[in-house]
Structure formats: C-alpha cells, structure tokens
C-alpha cells in the first residue's frame, strides 16, 4: 500500500513538470527539453539553500527564479538567435549540468535536519497523509494560479501565440517576448517539482534530472488522451486532466515495479509506457479506418 502512496506523492510532486510541459508543448507549441536541467537546478538550489540554513520562503523564491532564468535563456536563444527550440533546450540543459555541479560543489546533497515544507504543517500524525494533504494544497494553489492566468487577457494572448502567430502579432503582441515569458514560467514550475521532490526524498542529486522530461511528456499525453476522450475545451478541465495524467503515470510505473520488473529497467519501462500511450489512440484509429 505504501508503495502506491509513494507513487501518488511523487505524481503530485511532478505536477509542476506536467504543467510546465503542458504550457511549453500544448500552449506555446514549443518542444522544450530544458526540463531535465531546470528540474535538477530546482533540486540542487533547494539542497544548497536549505543546508545553508536559508528559510523555506527564500529558498522557494530562489528556486522559482533559477528555473525561470533557465527557461528564459532557452527562450532567448530560440527567439532572438532563431535557433530550433529543441536545440536551444538541449544547449541550456547541457550547460545546466555543469552549473548544477558548480552550485552543489559535489554530486549529492543529503538534507539532514534541515527545514522542509513537509514539516511546516502538522495536519495529522500519519506522515504520509500529512505529505499528501500538503502536496494537494500546493498543487491546488499552482493549478489555480495557472488556470486564472490562462483566463486573463494576457493568458488568452499566450494561448493565441502558440495557436496563430500571424494573428496575434497583427493584434499587437510581441510573440518573442511572449515565448520567453512562457518558457520561463514552464521551467519555474519544473524547478518547483525539483524543490518538492528533493524535500520528499531527503536529498538532491546531480543526476536527478536525467530523463525527467519524459515524465512531463507522458503526463501531458495521458492528460491529452483523457481530454480528447471527454471532448473537453475548458481550461480548468484540461489542467485537471494533465494533473491526473501525472498521477496516473506514476501509478502505472508503480504497478510495473510491483509486478517485479527490475528497477534498472525503469527508464526503459517508462519509455515503453509513453510509446504505448501515444500509439494506442493511433492504433485504434487505424483499426476503425479499415
């Protein structure tokens, strides 16, 4: 049972990555893989700040700012230098590995007796349940923020940027600036996931970000499948299903591990699961076209 609760907690921690990828891939139509770097950056900054005794609030702001900076950098490389978004993301992600190593000073930062968001509130005595309530609160707050943002005039302009660039430029929006802001926001959310997971698992690691982008992609793709399933067009519904995607994805992984699959094969299993989710709707479509 604990196994599945852990998966649920992890899924909620990864909500930031899922929403981040949703913003970059679905809203802005940009394949951004800065994620691996900005997630680890979030974790490492958290580790360094907390072990140096900075309060949680300051650490959180530093994490969000660091993630936003990484995303903005990808955005600037992509828009100003007109470099393919994938390459821009790879460049920043690669550079961040060294940056992270330099900030951390070593490859692993254990958090022992440091402040933690998970011990701020004592809702119940059961630590797992306590963590769950806190994560639901955090996820509710960021989802509320993103949902509101997308409903505002600025948010409509964001959505139009990824949907019809000629139109939104003719309507007076600097799309380059908009994309930079969007990628900054997406990677700040990703760094937030790093912030949460570091405290949940009690350490930050230089390699924690490797292959993490697939979790965001998988969550968004599961979410999208559900969105098409329910034929949703509302912003709130879409966001909720992306969150559901993040949790479902972790659950599926947990089940696979519980079935006795070697943990060394985790990334392979992850890749295969994402491939299955992507291809299932197409295979179904092929069949119906016969």
């Amino acid at each position, binding site marked *: 049972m604990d196994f599945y609760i852990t998966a649920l907690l992890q899924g909620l921690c990864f909500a930031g990555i899922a929403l981040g990828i949703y913003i970059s891939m679905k809203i802005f139509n940009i394949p951004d893989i800065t994620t691996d770097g900005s997630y680890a950056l979030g974790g490492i900054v958290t580790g360094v700040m907390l072990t140096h005794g900075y309060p949680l609030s300051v650490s959180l702001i530093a994490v969000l700012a660091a993630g936003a900076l990484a995303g903005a950098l990808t955005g600037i490389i992509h828009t100003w230098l007109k470099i393919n978004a994938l390459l821009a993301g790879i460049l920043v992600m690669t550079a961040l590995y060294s940056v992270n190593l330099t900030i951390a000073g070593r490859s692993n930062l254990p958090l022992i007796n440091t402040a933690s968001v998970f011990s701020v509130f004592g809702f119940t005595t059961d630590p797992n349940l306590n963590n769950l309530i806190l994560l639901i609160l955090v996820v509710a707050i960021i989802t509320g923020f993103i949902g509101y943002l997308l*409903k505002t*005039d600025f948010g409509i*302009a964001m*959505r139009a940027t990824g949907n*019809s660039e000629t*139109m*939104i430029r*003719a*309507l007076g929006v600097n*799309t380059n600036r908009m994309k930079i802001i969007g990628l900054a926001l997406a990677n700040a959310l990703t760094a937030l996931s790093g912030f949460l997971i570091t405290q949940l698992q009690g350490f930050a690691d230089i390699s924690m970000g490797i292959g993490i982008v697939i979790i965001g992609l998988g969550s968004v793709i599961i979410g999208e499948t559900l969105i098409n399933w329910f034929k949703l067009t509302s912003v709130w519904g879409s966001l909720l299903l992306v969150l559901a995607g993040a949790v479902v994805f972790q659950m599926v992984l947990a089940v696979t591990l519980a079935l006795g699959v070697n943990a060394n094969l985790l990334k392979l299993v992850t890749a295969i699961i994402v491939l299955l989710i992507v291809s299932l709707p197409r295979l179904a479509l092929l069949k119906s076209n016969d």
Partner: protein
Amino acid sequence: MIKLDNVTKIFNKGQANEVRAIEELSLTINPQEYVVIVGANGSGKSTLLNLVAGSIRPTSGEIILDGQTVTRLADYERSRWIARVFQNPLSGTAPDLSILDNFRLAALRTQRKGFGIGTTAAFKKQVQEKVATLGMELENKLEQPMGTLSGGQRQALTLLMSVMDECRILLLDEPTAALDPRSANLVMEAANQLINNFKLTAILITHNLKDAHLYGNRLIQMGEGRILQDFATVNKSKLTQNKIFEWFS
C-alpha cells in the same frame, strides 16, 4: 494617411536568387481612401502590403503612417494603426480559441493585454450584438472554437474583429481568395460597409477584376515592383471592367 517614400525591397540581396520585389516606389494614400491594387503574380502587391504592415522591412526608403515614421517598427508595434485580414482564413484567427477569446484579443489590439479577466458577461453581450449584424447565426455560438467555422465565416468574423478596437487602416490581402463565390461576395460587402461606416483608410489586394471595378475609390495596377497605372476617384469611376481586363491580356 499612408505614405511610402522611395521604398525599395530586395530579397536575398547579392545572392544568385536575388529578387527585386519593390523598386523605388513612392505612394501617398489619403485618409478614407479605399485603394484597390491589382497586378500579376510577382508584381510586388503582397510585398507592398507586408511593408506597410511591418511584417518585412524595406531595404531602403521610409514608411510613414499618420505623419509618424514607422519604418523601423515591427508588425506588432504598428497594430496601433493597422488591422489586417489575411488571404488564408486560418491566419487571421486562432482556431483553438473560442470566438469570444478571439474577439477579446481583437478588442485589445491597440492596448496592453493585462492580468484581468476581460471576457465578462458585458463583453460577451457586446460581441453577441456585433456578431448578430453578420446574420450568420453565430451569436449564440461564441464559446465554440474558431476552427469549427467555415472559411467564409472566419473571414467575416476577422473583418468584424478589426473594428473591435480603434482602427484607422485596414489591409485586405486577397481576403476572398480561398472562398466560394457566395461567401466571397458576403465578405466583400461586409468589408465595404465597415470601411464606409468607420471611415477607414483601406488597401485591398485582389485578383478578382470584378471586385477591383466594383469596390474602392482608387485603383492601382502594379508590375515588376512599380506602380504602372494609378486611377483616383473620378478616373476610376470612368474605367470599365473590360478596360481592366485588357491590362492582363
């Protein structure tokens, strides 16, 4: 007022595939003039329109809107003066956004897109009333994604969107090229009404010589990046449709 002063546009300058799209062209369009531009493919019509809109910048020369030099301003900075309708109905609207969201952005063309929620009940009512004037029965479908509408409906809505905010100049780049004849007529009529009612300065690019004859109060024929003929109000009304056809034979 739109003024082009000795404007030249050369694509791929100095390379083997160099194209001299516009050659030392000067043109003044007065307020409330509705200029129709005709010309063969490659005559520079679309380049001219893109230069006015700011999608591309001239190799040399100046572009002046309402007395202000805008040569160095990007397209999104010129939206203060200019509204556009594109050849492709997909370019003028955002397909995945609702009709209402599209209108909200259009209503803020000259303004900042802020962090308040602007798609209020009052705004929706205002859009409903405007959309109802088209007689396309779209006024109760404002939550529907724009992409579910036909090309003709989208072009008509794009036109309407152009006057949601203060508008002085309307650029129409072959707005009916992708439409069936009936929708094309509806869109051209709607454009004509808006231009008259809102006293707009307008440029229409068209390959439809019937439209070129019927609409506008000034007719320009372009060829090889230059103005070949220019008929102002009185002279344009004297032109017959056959005469215009002869230019292309």
